[in-house]
């Protein structure tokens, strides 16, 4: 097993906060919140969302928005990695999603239900739209391909699976992350659960009222050091550890004692061979729901102490479901590299039930290691440890 650090040689991100890392970081610095009413589909509901505006038209194809978002982020990440032609390397693809895994086209289904027939184009798009398979075919990748459908931790788990592939030498390079579009079906579903906010979300705030859905894609190029060396690529960013653990408690609510989150953090830190004291910040899942933020804040305070620099970026992007883990891994790596994290936007008033408050201002971070966490429907929890070689 290869237990050396795995390099992050490229990153790509698109969300309501921006298209590309530079645009996103600029939005973070400005405190831009691009949430607003739904424009992508007609709905009787009025919960605000974070849509990607100014969608790059060269990627836009009917009914394949999740895949298009993924390809935008993949292309950015490959360009960032200088990986124009992966020929000669065993390249794997591991992507998380929720929406792209389901044939939830309302028009198709309505037609089938009412008439017994339906145009097959939506079904064809679904059957030909497996994220990992399409990306692998596009890259002519010769490594494993896997689409992870683990609800809100899908992106984080996909990156974790990629780490396992690289450690076991199944491939030299993996394109890993997550993508999801804003879709009518989960929009109604989350509303039915009563966890959507009728204003903009405020993670960890005393008066938080729920989440906003968003959309986007976040992708990392992960690479064994010897592969990077072979193609003269370099990076100071590393993926060091992954932990995943189930609460085995409830389908939609986190365990009140956060047993799964605690275990996933311990596993990720153990794999990275570091201690909680080494962590300079945590990019939390922080959805803005009562239950998630209370449990997550409590466990992060227990694990890292009340002085931890912590934030949620969902105030900028909304909850992008299967993309969230990918995007937040990118933001975590970008924060480490830039040496600062943005204010946890939306947060104003500390909650006495949460022994830890997120940062309110742009905050300098000088350490070498950071953590990104994800908590999912179904009780799955996942954590990544990202490092900066040569950092403080």
């Amino acid at each position, binding site marked *: *097993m290869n237990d050396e650090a795995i390099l992050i040689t490229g990153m790509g991100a698109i969300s309501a906060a921006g298209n590309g890392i530079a645009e996103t970081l600029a939005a973070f610095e400005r405190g831009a919140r691009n949430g607003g009413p739904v424009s992508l589909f007609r*709905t*009787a*509901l009025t919960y605000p969302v974070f849509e990607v505006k100014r969608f790059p038209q060269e990627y836009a194809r009917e009914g394949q928005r999740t895949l298009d978002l993924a390809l935008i982020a993949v292309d950015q990440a490959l360009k960032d990695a200088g990986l124009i032609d992966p020929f000669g390397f065993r390249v794997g693809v591991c992507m998380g999603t*929720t929406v792209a*895994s*389901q*044939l*939830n086209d309302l028009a198709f*289904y*309505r037609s*089938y*239900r009412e*008439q*017994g*027939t339906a145009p*097959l184009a939506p079904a064809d798009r679904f*059957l030909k739209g497996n994220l990992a*398979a399409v990306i692998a*075919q596009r890259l002519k990748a010769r490594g*494993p*391909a*896997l*689409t*992870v*459908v*683990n*609800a809100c931790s899908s992106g984080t788990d996909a990156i974790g*699976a990629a780490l*396992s*592939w690289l*450690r*076991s030498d*199944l491939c030299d390079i993996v394109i890993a992350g997550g993508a999801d579009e804003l879709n*009518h*079906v*989960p*929009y*109604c*579903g*989350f*509303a*039915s*659960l*009563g966890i959507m906010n009728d204003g903009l979300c405020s993670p960890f705030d005393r008066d938080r009222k729920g989440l906003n859905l968003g959309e986007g894609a976040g992708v990392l190029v992960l690479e064994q050091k010897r592969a990077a060396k072979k193609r003269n690529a370099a990076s100071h960013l590393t993926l060091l550890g992954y932990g*995943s*653990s*189930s*609460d*085995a*408690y409830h*389908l*939609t609510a986190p365990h009140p004692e956060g047993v*799964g989150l605690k*275990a996933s953090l311990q596993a990720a830190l153990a794999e990275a061979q570091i201690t909680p004291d080494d962590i300079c910040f945590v990019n939390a899942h922080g959805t803005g729901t009562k239950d998630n933020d209370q449990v997550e804040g409590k466990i992060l305070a227990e694990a890292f102490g009340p002085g931890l620099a912590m934030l949620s970026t969902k105030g900028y992007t909304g909850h992008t479901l299967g993309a969230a883990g990918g995007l937040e891994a990118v933001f975590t790596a970008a924060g480490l590299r830039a040496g600062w994290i943005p204010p946890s936007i939306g947060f104003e008033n500390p909650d006495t039930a949460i022994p830890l408050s997120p940062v309110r201002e742009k905050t300098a971070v000088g350490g070498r290691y950071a953590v990104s966490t994800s908590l*999912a*429907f*179904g*009780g*799955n929890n996942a954590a990544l440890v990202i490092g900066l070689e040569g950092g403080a």
Partner: protein
Amino acid sequence: MNILGIGMIFSRGLGIACFEKALQDGWRKPGEIEVAHGAGRNYPVYLAGLETVQGKTLLKKIRRSDKLAKMSALAAADALVDGGIGGLRDKRVGVIIATAFGAHVTTFSFLDDILDYGDAAVSPTTFSNSVHNAAASYVSLSLDIQGPTLTVTQFQFSFQAAMQLAQTWLDQGRCDYLLVGAVDQYGDVLRYVADRKLAIAEDGKIKPFAFNPTCYVPGEGAVFFLLSGEDRGKSYCRVDAVHTYDDPLHGKPVDINIIDADGMLPDESAYLPSLSPDIPSAAYSPLFGSMMIGSAFNAAAGALMIKRQTRYASPVQDNPHGICILTETGEARIEAIRCMGIDCSQAKSAIYLTSA
């Protein structure tokens, strides 16, 4: 890694003993259903029946779940019993579920809600059960498993991809035991789609060695494997290697080739170049139906053959290409089996099983 236990539910019952009996008894005509919008026409289908399951304790625990989750939980629990593993709290156990289509039946129920009652009046229970990883969550919840719980989907190679990841997790010590399962459910809407792309076997008989043209009979069910790096002396077999999208070991000598051919592709002739005239081939899809996760059932058949040192005849032996197929059931020395799959782009997968 070693296969310590196998659990399954399919059209002929719950448990590996039912599957073994099916392998011994051979093909049986599937049941029939009248499908929506089918103009009263009946279609053959291999449905898994939950109503005959003995001991309802587990089902009571997950009574709000859908059929996909119930099949998963029953098969996973069965694998633990078969593997003789109990007291999971002190063991590091993970779950990986492979599915091609996930909770599509529940998803369409949720779409019914939206169409019938509007965006603001849909059922939260239906929604939470429609999420792709709900079945895996019910498995970990009902069996009290707190290790990593993952759901993956890769259409034809979902199960192989899950096994490949499982191998890395065990090698890296992320878990001591893994329940790797494959599950899919029959549903009218996807049958409608399949019928427009594939030919139904009107006589209910999948002919896996026909290759082109093919015919299919929808199936459903769940298979779970209890995997571990340890060999407790009662293992079914060892999983030597798992390859997806390519099989670098395709020239390796084995005792039997099991192919996943089941009519889920209109042309399955990509199997032909991989079949040797000297190595008997088998295909068991006529026992459980056509499913993109059918490879898991075939792998279970392979594991049983190695454990029992018994060859099971291919249940349907129509053989227009004159290939070497397993025609008779009987004792045999079996050390290695290759389970082969192809996908719609003709890419290959392989799982190599050897005696432990």
